[in-house]
């Protein structure tokens, strides 16, 4: 990267889409550039000037170069500011940072994707890539768990994705309209029949989900190098300098956020925590 890596590029919020009561997808167009080249699973740092900067996984398709999207839950100063700004707002963008999903390695294999809550965001670019290159992959299953039916994001996409891949949903707590499964996302794993020797499992969600899903995948016979996840830590700089995201000698921002279980299993500090 040339120039000053702390200096964000300016970007305009050109579109917002409300996903759930507290979550929205923001489409950002970077000023004066041909967009952003990235690998699914990478993240960017988004600045709301005056409010600070926060890391977000890129949630848009890697095939779309003219903009990037991030899907954001309103929980902190930066995210609140993004919501208040809305369309037309000017933000800063640094990145992309980190290592995404190892797409080339996963080609020719089945994919078992597991997303929890807003953790499905970094899976969306991967899913779009897979659908665009559908013949390069075997069976593709997406298991997605949300808290309640209202918390399901990407409702439009989920319908579209169903035409190409096997999409299965669950909610922790249903409501009167909900006809599908209830329970945490691991319940969906019970019905999954895949050959773990020819399948990559790919997960993103809250730490507790990754902790339990990984245990379950190991029981199902997945080897450690076929269990992939995107880890959440505080990432301030994106370059392995600020130290917040360190786990036992690795920086989530630079060496991750996508890791194989085999890469973090031996770390002195446990990477998977409840």
């Amino acid at each position, binding site marked *: 990267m040339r120039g000053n890596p702390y200096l964000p590029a300016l970007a305009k919020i050109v579109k917002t889409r409300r996903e759930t009561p507290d979550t929205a997808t923001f489409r950002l167009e970077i000023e004066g550039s041909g967009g952003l080249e990235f690998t699914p699973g990478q993240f960017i740092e988004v600045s709301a000037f005056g409010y600070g900067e926060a890391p977000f996984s890129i949630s848009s398709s890697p095939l779309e170069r003219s903009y990037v999207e991030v899907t954001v839950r309103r929980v*902190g100063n930066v995210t*609140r*500011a993004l919501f208040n700004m809305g369309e037309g707002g000017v933000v800063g963008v640094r990145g992309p940072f980190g290592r995404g999903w190892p797409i080339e390695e996963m080609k020719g294999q089945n994919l078992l994707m597991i997303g929890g809550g807003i953790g499905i965001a970094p899976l969306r670019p991967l899913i779009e890539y897979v659908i665009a290159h559908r013949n390069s992959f075997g069976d593709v299953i997406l298991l997605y768990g949300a808290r309640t039916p209202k918390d399901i994001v990407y409702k439009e996409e989920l319908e579209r994705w169903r035409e190409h891949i096997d999409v299965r949903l669950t909610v922790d707590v249903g409501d009167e309209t909900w006809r599908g499964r209830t329970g945490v996302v691991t319940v969906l794993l019970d019905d999954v029949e895949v050959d773990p020797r020819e399948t990559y499992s790919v997960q993103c969600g809250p730490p507790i989900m990754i902790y339990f899903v990984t245990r379950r995948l190991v029981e199902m016979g997945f080897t450690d190098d076929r269990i992939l996840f995107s880890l959440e830590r505080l990432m301030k700089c994106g370059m392995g300098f600020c130290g917040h995201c360190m786990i036992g000698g690795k920086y989530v921002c630079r060496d991750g956020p996508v890791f194989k279980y085999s890469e973090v299993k031996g770390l002195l500090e446990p990477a998977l925590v409840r």
Partner: protein
Amino acid sequence: MEKPKVGIFSMSSCEGCLVQVLNLEDKILEMMRSVELVDCRLLGVKKSYDRLDIAIVEGAVMSDEEERELREIRERSKILVALGDCACHGGRFLFKDFKFDSVPVDLPRGLKSFRADPLDKYVKVDYYVYGCPIDGDDFLRLFKELLMGKEYRPAPFNVCAECVLKDNECLLDKGIPCLGPITRGGCGAVCPTSGRRCIGCRGLAEDANVDSLIEIFTKRGIEVPEYLWELKKQVGGGRRG
């Protein structure tokens, strides 16, 4: 857009915290341009209003009348800020969280024990500006962030962190019973920097380790004051794992 309505109120206090605010002079005037000050006894402002966006309250509650007044302020305010140690802790520094019935404090009036309660004994407090007196810039930051819709967070460190950056020698090493290690920072370690011990005016630091401080006092031959033993009963070593 209508300017946010702001009221500044005093319970029982020395008004030293308000003086800190007024000492901001130009800066506070600039800030006040973006709000409408509707109530402030010290500045002689008293307009009529129903609702307040921000109520800033300094001082401790020492009477039923003040208690009533405070509840009334809370009723009609969107955001209530406790300004200074009296409002945050009842003027008893580290004791606030520990619900002591009476704390011996020498008052010029000669009272031995008295009622002096923090605001949050009676009402919900949204934000705390710590210190005795408060730091003017701290207040400015809070105010600015409130107007921006940003969440104000007090300093995450204790007094020692700022003290060492001032190239200070540790007072504990000189046998002085400094409370810096368990006290919330953000003050710039003003007291230790001028050779005075920290007396804990910003309250207990996040994750304060009272057990360890007692051990440190003991090892250095510093007499452990009674209130530290009391604190130990309540928080001990904080998060010890």
